[in-house]
């Protein structure tokens, strides 16, 4: 018997942090414009010491002003989607749950688009209107989870296949509405249809957005982490969890709101990037086990690694043009989903 300890979690996470660092360096180096490792190290040190003004080279500008923020975005999106996926899997007791597969990402995208459309008419202060898109995405995500939850119930119980089917249909329906809206509305600032449906990380944002994403992630993921033990028990069923001392309605509410919020955060800045919340938790479960005290932090780091890596591929495979990062994650994720589904049915 070797129960999970805080020390072991730190150890496992630090291994992942090292991997993340390596992937980030690779992501900084590769791209349409190649950068030498030496110049990279040199420029990064300057950034660290607050001397970014001294970076004169164009390469440095590309690395610091374009690639670095994009990598930061990839880290936050990957971690958010991965933690959201892990949470939905426990909440819905379905190992195939993922924000994208369940249509939650599409719901968040629709919410974000509606917020972007409404924004010019609301005459809000700039700070408030910047929050409007994530808020819309969160509400869209939360409404979709509720709808899929209702659709996925049969005779008062959540039925695994009905839930997935309900999610897929919801996703397809919401994508159709997004397509309709994007085709008819010609408002300038709603980004593109491909952005919302496939997801990409090419949009750059103001500095405050990264702060908002970072703080939002830590608050929501922290809230989910306080229920890590409860989630372990919830996997055995709600009745059993209750008999073991879990306050099931409270845990469900916390996880539902926080996971919807994380999905909304990620989608509002990157569109519907799929399968991250499905694959990463599965891989982490294989490596580190299914205890949520370990799984949640390792999945967050794993999600960051996966999306930074996928985005580097998306930027470089067909350079100088770019793939949507969502296309890369779907090419890897969809076959894996089929594999997991078939293994479950067998």
């Amino acid at each position, binding site marked *: *018997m070797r129960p999970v300890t805080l020390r072991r979690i730190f150890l496992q996470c630090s291994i992942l942090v090292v991997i993340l660092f390596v992937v980030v360096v690779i992501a900084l180096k590769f791209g349409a414009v190649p950068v030498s490792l030496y110049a990279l190290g040199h420029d990064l040190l300057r950034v660290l010491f607050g001397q970014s003004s001294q970076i004169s080279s164009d390469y440095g500008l590309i690395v610091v002003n374009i690639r670095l923020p994009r990598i930061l975005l990839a880290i936050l999106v990957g971690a958010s989607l991965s933690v959201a996926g892990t949470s939905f899997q426990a909440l819905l007791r379905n190992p195939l749950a993922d924000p994208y597969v369940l249509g939650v990402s599409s719901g968040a995208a629709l919410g974000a688009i509606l917020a972007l459309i409404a924004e010019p008419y609301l005459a809000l202060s700039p700070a408030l209107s910047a929050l409007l898109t994530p808020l819309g995405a969160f509400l869209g995500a939360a409404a979709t989870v509720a709808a899929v939850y209702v659709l996925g119930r049969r005779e008062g119980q959540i039925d695994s296949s009905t839930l997935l089917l309900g999610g897929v249909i919801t996703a397809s329906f919401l994508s159709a509405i997004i397509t309709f809206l994007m085709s008819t509305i010609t408002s300038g600032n709603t980004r593109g249809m491909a952005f919302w449906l496939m997801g990409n990380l090419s949009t750059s944002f103001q500095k405050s957005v990264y702060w908002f994403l970072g703080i939002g992630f830590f608050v929501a993921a922290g809230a989910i982490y306080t229920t890590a033990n409860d989630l*372990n028990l919830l*996997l055995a069923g709600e009745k059993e969890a209750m008999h073991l001392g879990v306050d099931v309605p409270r845990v469900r509410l916390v996880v539902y709101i926080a996971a919807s919020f994380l999905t909304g955060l990620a989608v509002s800045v990157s569109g519907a990037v799929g399968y991250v919340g499905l694959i990463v938790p599965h891989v982490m479960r294989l490596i580190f086990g299914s205890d949520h005290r370990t799984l949640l932090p390792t999945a967050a780091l794993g999600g960051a690694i996966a999306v930074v890596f996928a985005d580097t591929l998306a930027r470089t495979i067909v350079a100088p043009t770019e793939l949507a990062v969502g296309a890369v994650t779907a090419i890897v994720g969809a076959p894996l989903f089929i594999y997991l589904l078939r293994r479950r049915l067998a």
Partner: protein
Amino acid sequence: MSGGSVLARNANEATRSSADARLSVEQVSYAYSANPTQAPLFTLEATSFQAKPGEVVAILGPNASGKSTLLKLIAGALAPLSGRILLNGFVTHSLTPRTRAQRIAVVQQESLLLFPSRVWEFVLQGRHAHGRSLRFESDDDVMIAKNALAQVGAADLSDRSMDQISGGEKQRVILARALAQQPLLLLLDEPTLHLDIAAQVDLLHTLRRLAAENRYTVVVVTHELNLAAEYTDQIVLMQRGRCLRVGPPSSIYQRELLEQVFQTPLTVELGPSGRPRVTVLSDRQ
């Protein structure tokens, strides 16, 4: 018994140590309806019984007689329509899930696992209610879990995976998790359902021994008339939502009564242990 004395006794009970676990089911009724405006689909009429520490109580009756409903009421998972259920003087339904899980352990018919865990991880789940919500298991928790496994004779299963052990072994591990909760009251809903005869006898024998050793009060819902007669102190006999009779096996196991409840011809005789034994007769005899 007058109302005053009941209250006095309960106040007294609440202050006693946990070793004096006592279950008191007092005139408990329940009604279930799919739609509040319609007549209830199922009702449980006023049921009462008491159980002392170390006592094993069996709830017997045909299907749909209200056995599982009564067990859920005792577990505090359902709120009674009238009456109350006291454990050491506390109303079970009013306790928070955490406090309830520190006092009542429930072993259900089956335990589904989404991601199979190790046996020891599963047993450690029983420690959840003891301590803060986000916590890491202490050495004490590990020792309690080990003891629990040893008590059900499953210490050697500790490192096995939950999906690679037999039905009988699994049932013992689930029981060990309940023991790790260190409850006052142990509730079991048809624990022998998917077990072979040897495993059934083994489980009830274990329950009997645990009740005596740990001074648990055990309430078990079962269909096994002979095992119940052999291993329990008290029988609660149910039929169509009514509690027909409560008492020791010798007073419940009467031919006419059982034939009427179970709607089948049978004989009752004394077994070698001095406990009643039921033989179900086929219609042709």
